[in-house]
């Protein structure tokens, strides 16, 4: 499959601070790619370099066949992390204006805006001013504004932040719809569940460096399965069970028992019962992308990376 986006050895420095270091990955055409990492990992800097808003200190970027995102800006849709639209414009005017900047005739932009707003359940708010809309509604309008010109490549920076679960679900459907229509989608997030549900491919970023590139399943497989044990069991007793790699005592008293690669789990459980351990509840769990992220990077995706942001 040909790549819509390729990064090769891209580095971005702000003075002495290295925001992105030697980053390489590719996003196949028509796929949904999650760009994952905690806040401060370098995601926004990378997206800005892809768009050509900031030059890379070194390395090469190829997007839709161009070496600079600015050369193909009309074929790209972009939703920035911090969002805003002109407060006094109506949603239709705002969408048509941003569409027009991407080369879409104003009249066509307005026509599409009305249809898309209707599809997103915002038909009744078409004539309201942006400042009268709720945050969720405004975010939907901005997303529509970024894709109204039907871009080939859509870049969404933390699109789920600030949305309630209902709107998050709506946004997931919208992203799937974009990919179904043939667009390539690259979105950044620090919430792994969205990526798990949506992505064909994920790129994990930690402290400016790529930690992983591949499918969600491949990422998960890098992390061990684990047993969730509840009962009066000491971590040492659990660690002595067969097939156990390590044991983590959780705050609520449960034990998270990571299994060795290849260990089935049943053997471990059987040994626990036969050994007379006080197992009141147990569950055999598959690793999540969240687990994989922690395993691969040592960072916690929900916590900002401890790096001095000098930009």
């Amino acid at each position, binding site marked *: 499959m040909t790549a819509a986006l390729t990064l090769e050895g891209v580095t971005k420095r702000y003075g002495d601070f290295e925001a992105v270091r030697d980053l390489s990955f590719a996003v196949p055409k028509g796929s949904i790619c999650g760009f994952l990492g905690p806040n401060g990992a370098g995601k926004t800097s990378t997206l800005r370099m892809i768009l050509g*808003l900031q030059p890379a200190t070194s390395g090469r970027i190829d997007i839709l066949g161009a070496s600079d995102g600015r050369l193909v800006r009309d074929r790209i849709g972009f939703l920035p992390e911090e969002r805003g639209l002109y407060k006094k414009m109506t949603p239709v005017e705002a969408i048509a204006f941003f569409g027009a900047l991407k080369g879409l005739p104003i009249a066509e932009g307005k026509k599409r805006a009305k249809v898309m707003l209707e599809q997103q359940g915002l038909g009744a708010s078409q004539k309201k001013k942006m400042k009268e809309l709720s945050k969720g509604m405004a975010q939907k309008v901005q997303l529509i504004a970024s894709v109204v010109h039907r871009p080939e490549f859509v870049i969404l920076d933390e699109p789920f932040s600030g949305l309630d679960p209902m709107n998050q679900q709506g946004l997931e459907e919208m992203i799937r719809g974009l990919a179904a229509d043939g667009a390539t989608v690259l979105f950044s997030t620090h919430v792994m569940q969205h990526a798990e549900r949506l992505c064909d491919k994920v790129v994990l970023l930690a402290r400016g460096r790529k930690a992983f590139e591949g499918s969600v399943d491949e990422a998960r497989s890098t992390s061990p399965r684990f047993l969730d044990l509840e009962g009066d069991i000491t971590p040492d007793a659990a660690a002595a069970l067969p097939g156990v790699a390590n044991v983590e005592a959780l705050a609520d008293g449960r034990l998270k028992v990571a299994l060795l690669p290849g260990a089935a789990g049943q053997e471990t459980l059987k040994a626990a019962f036969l050994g007379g351990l006080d197992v009141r509840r147990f569950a055999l769990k598959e690793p999540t992308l969240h687990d994989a992220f922690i395993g691969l990077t040592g960072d916690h995706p929900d916590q900002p990376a401890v790096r001095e942001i000098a930009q």
Partner: protein
Amino acid sequence: MKRTLLIARREYVAYAKTVGFWLSLLAFPLFAVLGGGIPLLIRSAEPIKAVAIVEEGPQASGLAAVVQSALKAEQDRINQRAQDAAAKGQAGAGRAVASLGGPKIRLVPAPGAIADASTGPSRDEAIRHALDKSTPDDQRLDAVVFLTRQDGRPAAQVWTGRANDSDVGDFVRSALRTGYREEMLVSAGVAPALVDQIESFRPEVKAFSPNAASGGEVSMRDRLPSFIGLGAGFLLWSLVLTGASILLNSVMEEKSNRILEVLLSSASATEILTGKVLGVAFLTLTVLAAWGGLGAFVLLSAAPQTAVQVGQVLLHQGLVFYFIAYMVGGYLMYAVLFAAIGAFCETPRDAQTLMGPIMMVLIVPIMVMQMALTSPDAPVVKILSWIPFFTPFLMSARAPSDPPLIEIILTLIGMFATAALMVWIAGRAFRAGALSDVKLSWKSFGRAITGRG
């Protein structure tokens, strides 16, 4: 180009829809009317003062008549001017002259307690009572004037209700001076009719200059260019200030609403900057055109001859094009700078760091421009007009007095070179500021320009 025009159009429409825009559109004509009308209103609303005149002793005899006749003469003069104006078909102007001119004084007989009393505490008490606010209107006085003679010369003591009221005192002083002059001339043997003739004589003075339009006599037509130049300078100054402030606020709003990043992903920094500068320029031009149109209409209907002369001055040697060139350069220099500052700011407080020095720079031409009206070739005016940031204002003010062509060309080159440099600097700063969360300071601005930000 299409994107630039789109951004310009949005900028224009966004402001044209606001109340502030329409207020600014109407403000100038409104203030022109108010500015002209308020002094008239104040003067005509000013109450006529009731003044009692008392001659102290036989030596002061005749002085009250002097003051009385001076008041009548003044009133006659005002009435004559009003009639002359009305005769020329300017009824409004006639009324204005009548209401503006002359002292607002009415002479009333002095109450017995003042007129008949000799100096002393009881008379002082009577005066205080007459001037007191609580005294009934029909008995109350605004001033009491005691006329006397000291060493044979007229003198007066003026009591007024308000301590800072000098109108009556001024009028009495002038009346006594005129009266004394007449008295002395008559006593020296000059015929009273001759004295009147001398008093009313106003010499006719005509000004000539080899540089006058007629080649000799100086007329209003010759003074007009200086006024037009000064007007153009002030107009440019207000245009720069309002336009640049609109730009600053507009960019600041986009920065704080996080719109700049979306815009930057859709258009280049240059396109955005140009679009915004153009949009606001059209906006200010709309205001200018509305004011200019209204001004031309008023001038054409009130003084068609002056209107024609203004037209001639503007077209003489393409003066209007000089103004336009300086206007474009001046607006560009300041507008892009303000826009760049806006890209670093989210609140007006953020902007104050850099705005203070710029405002100080902008005050200099305002002060020097007035000097350019009277002495367009004064060294300070000449030297300052070479500084590109002052060039547009000062050269506009100097342009009608025909500065050397070489100065015009070189200052234009200097100004446009600086404007180009400002566009380049502002483009870099705008791009860096729009994407950064760094607070505005000279350091961050400098880093953005040098590309180290």
